[in-house]
């Protein structure tokens, strides 16, 4: 029994840690891939002025002139969008090909080649001899392959549609006009750069990885502590029989190390299984669906194994250190009584430490500077919150006891209070688990709301098109005036505001903006004032960096300054942005004509609009971005993140529930002397068991009540402190009461399940055993 609880406790804690690590790594990977799919647009592109194909010779001439460019060909194959890339020259991180994640580049380049796409897309492609590689991170209805194969499949040998321009270029290179005057370079399109937003999410996931580590440590500590509690009588006996203390301790330490190693190994394996079961991607990897991708996964595993074993061994060492120390100091004869009951004496010290830590967290929240302070604050908040739990619980129970009248109720509260020290470690684990869950769901959901809101705001138009020149722009306007509901020209210029580089945009006064844009702060009727040309809008980056505020004046072009009317969130953008009306923009920058347009249309007619643009304005598919597809893609990514969140909830609660079970089992034997008199006074065993069940639920409920503010504080610290320090903007925090309620219910269920077996055992305790308490023979 003792062995089982110890092994299971350690293994579960390790499983929790390694499972979260695995999920975390997988989530990061899929985020990276999704970001990459969204972001061919983070690179400038070179296309032919006439919209036609670029010959191989021109590509080679550009390379030989020093241009770091990579060729892309694109076309339709049996209705599927087929993109051909050149992996050796493609800028790092381009495309979800995951060539940099362990795919077989040799197979991609030689023989019949490979085609990467989602399974359903692959099913639609007839057999070309190329190996079909399922790749869930490729955008829907899109297939990726090597440029050579793509040219062959599309029947366009020697043709290139566009060249991607790497962000880093060599020091010396000839100008484009010199090498290939028939080509034109266009800057990266808007809205593609989600990298920084993704970075922020990664940071938060890492923070929660650490959090799960803390939960795991607590549980390991609890498991070891309880194991030692149970052994005190045996140690006393052995010592009384003459076994030397030093040898006893050494033996126990070795035994623990071996157990920790075994439990750690089981735990890591279990964690991997859990992660695989919960994450379709990892499971797919295991089934070999990814084929070559396995290499990328395998390279992660040593880190999991090592960190999983480290937490098992480290946690054991920390926990056993304290336990062995107290064992070493145990007087020879007085050690028979388990000491769980005496832990109450530590509670004052704990309360002081908790207050100090929470005070530190508060101080850092107000005055702290830098990322380190942010993380220190997180740590202080967590440990302080956990340490504060037992004293708070005791206090609450004392009040309840005072308020209750009936003797049984009074006894119930008093007995519950007496059990707090014995259960405190398990309850702290539950607190941390719940706080982590509240934090995770708040963070992830806030992130999702912000991100989708941002996409809605930024990509409100159904279709975005880019013209190669003014003539094509006019053709687009002609088609759109007939077929689209509204044309929103996107006018922009580079300016300097308060010494910082910024972009200035001209916005047409249209419902699209009025309905979709949200402001962090703004004057009343902001769009009306803006439409009258009496002010500007600025993004959060500029607002923070230039120290602007509503009403402050911002220079707009030559000799004109206007007040700030509103500040909007601009999460993907590294530089400052100013928005003025279209009229004002045109009068300030008359030389700039719009080449990019947002087109509003009934979503059902977007496809026919595309077709007319393709046919009448000669606009290639690459110059049209359908936002519905883009949004659907990013939302799918978030759904996967929610799987992660759910997995984390289930995992942490299961482990915390197990900790409670262990504590209750350990306490059960010790509590007989307390229960026997109550039983003798007339309370049936059944009633007593029922009360025990209620007690577990009450304690879990109280813990949950405390976990909610702690979890919210954690989420706030991550979103508003750590994120601002790391990235310069604040992610707005949203609350999700229903999620919290569901989580609370889950915690109660976990606690009740944990208490069920001990309660059942109590209800079936033979009366003789209870009677035995009254014989002085313990």
């Amino acid at each position, binding site marked *: 029994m003792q062995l089982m609880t110890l092994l299971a406790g350690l293994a579960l804690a390790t499983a929790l840690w390694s499972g979260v690590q695995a999920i975390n790594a997988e989530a990061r990977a899929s985020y990276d891939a999704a970001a990459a799919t969204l972001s061919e647009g983070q690179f400038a592109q070179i296309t032919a002025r006439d919209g036609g194909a670029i010959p*191989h*010779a021109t*590509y*080679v001439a550009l*390379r*030989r*002139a*020093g241009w*770091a460019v990579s060729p892309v060909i694109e076309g339709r194959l049996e209705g599927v969008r087929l993109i051909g890339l*050149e992996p*050796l*020259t493609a800028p*790092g991180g381009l495309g979800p090909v995951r*060539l*940099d*994640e*362990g*795919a077989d*580049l*040799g197979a991609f*380049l*030689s023989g019949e080649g490979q085609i990467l796409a989602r399974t359903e897309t692959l099913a639609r492609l007839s057999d070309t001899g190329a190996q079909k590689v399922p790749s869930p991170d490729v955008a829907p209805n899109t297939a990726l392959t*090597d*440029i*050579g*194969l793509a*040219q062959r499949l599309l029947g366009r*040998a*020697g043709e290139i549609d566009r060249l991607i321009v790497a962000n*880093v*270029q*060599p*020091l*010396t*290179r000839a100008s484009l006009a010199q090498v290939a005057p028939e080509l034109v370079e266009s800057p990266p399109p808007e809205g593609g750069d989600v990298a920084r937003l993704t970075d922020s999410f990664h940071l938060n996931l890492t923070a929660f990885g650490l959090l799960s580590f803390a939960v795991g440590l607590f549980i390991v500590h609890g498991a070891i502590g309880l194991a030692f509690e149970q052994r005190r009588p045996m140690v006393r006996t052995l010592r009384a029989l003459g076994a030397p203390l030093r040898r006893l301790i050494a033996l126990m330490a070795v035994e623990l190390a071996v157990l920790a190693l075994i439990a750690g190994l089981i735990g890591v394996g279990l964690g991997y299984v859990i992660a695989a079961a919960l994450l379709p991607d990892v499971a797919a990897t295991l089934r070999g669906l990814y084929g070559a991708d396995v*290499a*990328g996964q395998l*390279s992660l595993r040593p880190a999991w194994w090592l960190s999983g074993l480290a937490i098992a061994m480290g946690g054991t060492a920390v926990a056993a250190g304290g336990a062995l120390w107290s064992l070493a100091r145990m007087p020879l004869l007085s050690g028979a009584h388990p000491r769980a009951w005496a832990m109450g004496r530590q509670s004052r010290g704990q309360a002081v430490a908790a207050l100090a830590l929470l005070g530190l967290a508060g101080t850092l929240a107000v005055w702290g500077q830098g990322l380190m302070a942010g993380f220190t604050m997180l740590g202080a908040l967590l440990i302080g919150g956990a340490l504060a739990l037992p004293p708070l619980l005791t206090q609450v129970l004392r009040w309840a006891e005072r308020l209750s009248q009936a003797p049984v109720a009074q006894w119930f509260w008093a007995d519950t209070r007496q059990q707090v020290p014995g259960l405190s470690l398990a309850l702290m684990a539950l607190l941390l688990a719940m706080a982590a869950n509240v934090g995770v769901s708040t963070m992830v959901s806030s992130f999702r709301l912000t991100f989708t809101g941002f996409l809605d705001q930024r990509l409100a138009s159904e279709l975005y098109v880019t013209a190669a020149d003014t003539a094509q722009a006019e053709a687009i306007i002609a088609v759109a005036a007939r077929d689209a509901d509204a044309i929103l020209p996107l006018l922009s210029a580079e300016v300097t505001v308060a010494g910082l580089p910024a972009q200035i945009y001209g916005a047409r006064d249209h419902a699209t903006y009025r309905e979709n844009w949200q402001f962090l702060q703004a004057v009343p009727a902001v769009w009306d004032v803006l439409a009258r040309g009496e002010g500007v809008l600025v993004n959060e980056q500029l607002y923070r960096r230039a120290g602007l505020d509503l009403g402050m004046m911002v220079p707009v072009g030559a000799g004109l300054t206007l007040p700030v009317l509103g500040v909007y969130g601009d999460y993907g953008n590294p530089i400052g942005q100013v928005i003025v009306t279209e009229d004002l923009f045109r009068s300030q920058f008359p030389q700039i004509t719009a080449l990019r347009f947002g087109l509003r249309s009934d979503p059902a007619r977007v496809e026919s609009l595309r077709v007319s643009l393709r046919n009448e304005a000669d606009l290639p598919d690459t110059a049209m971005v359908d936002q519905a597809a883009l949004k659907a893609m990013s939302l799918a990514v978030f759904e996967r993140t929610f799987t992660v969140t759910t997995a984390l909830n289930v995992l942490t609660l299961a482990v915390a529930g197990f900790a409670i079970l262990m504590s209750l089992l350990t306490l059960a034997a010790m509590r007989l002397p307390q229960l026997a008199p109550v039983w003798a006074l007339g309370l049936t065993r059944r009633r007593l068991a029922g009360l025990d069940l209620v007690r577990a639920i009450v304690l879990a409920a109280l813990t949950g009540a405390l976990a909610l503010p702690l979890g919210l504080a954690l989420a706030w610290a991550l979103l508003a402190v750590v994120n601002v320090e790391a990235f310069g903007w604040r992610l707005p925090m949203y609350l999700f009461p229903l999620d919290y309620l569901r989580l609370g219910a889950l915690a109660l269920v976990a606690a009740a399940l944990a208490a069920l077996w001990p309660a059942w055992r109590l209800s079936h305790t033979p009366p003789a055993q209870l009677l035995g308490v009254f014989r002085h023979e313990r």
Partner: protein
Amino acid sequence: MNARTFILAVLLPMQAMAQGFAGLGAAVEDFAVPVPGRVLEFPVDHGAHPAYRIEWWYLTANMTGPDGTPYGLQWTLFRSALAPRDGQGWETPQLWMGHAAVTTPEAHFVAERLARGGIGQAGVEADPFSAWIDDWAMEGPDFDNLRLRASGADFAYDVALRATGPLITHGQNGYSVKSAAGQASYYYSQPFFDLAGTLTLPGGDIPVTGQAWLDREWSSQPLAADQSGWDWFSLSFETGDKMMGFVLRGSTDYTAATWISADGQTTAFPDGAFVAAPQEWHEVAGREVPVIWRARLPARGVDVTVTALNPGAWMQTSVPYWEGPVTISGSHEGVGYLEMTGYGD
């Protein structure tokens, strides 16, 4: 090591072998294998040998600026074949990788290029000689008169090379054995280039003069399975004599050396004649690398200390390694280049 590096390491086995990646030592399959007794023919052998798996054109130079500041320069073109054939267009299995570097006493600049063969982006022509990848090139009317160019994000160079001595071969007339088990490569050098030209560094252009050493080597399986890396020395002594020596590190070290007298006469020394031992290590890019060596060739009375000009000359490329200029003191004085692969990762 990140995953991309891993891929390229697998893809481009010339260095990967030195890094000890499992399995690469085994799969020679249909590639041609060097045999003793083949006479190297020029200018044909200056060109590419697509039937062999790997090949390189490897130039290093020791130079000085107008104020006497020493500089080092590297220009390397690697060829790696996925299959033993050539061809036109994207289907060719020939892949190319370029590495360029400039080393100053304080800084080390690195750039890398990758390219597919078959489309003209990279390749080598024997006569007139031209080796290129993108805008990097080593080319000229013949192998004795070359112009060398390369550029990275923060540096560039453009120098002229003029041979003042003959081509020399290593091992048995160019058949260079690389392990006790008999792995070998074809290996010849032009160690007698005079160099003059311009380095473009963040501080501006610097005119330089110096000496360069060009190595040519091709094979399909240069290392034995147990060999984890190598330490390669090219030393130019003030007497005009030169020496090439390498240590292939494995379960037992395998060494070889070539003594090149000032008039171009060569003597090849078998395993064990050349000895090199690390004297001092330096941490660079998170790993320990020996940057001061004691190198000895007792048969020629050579017992020198070889010291890196800049211990941080780390090539942070797809397959990372250390490569940089050195100074020589002890029984002989001079300068040279040191390449070390297979440390860390």
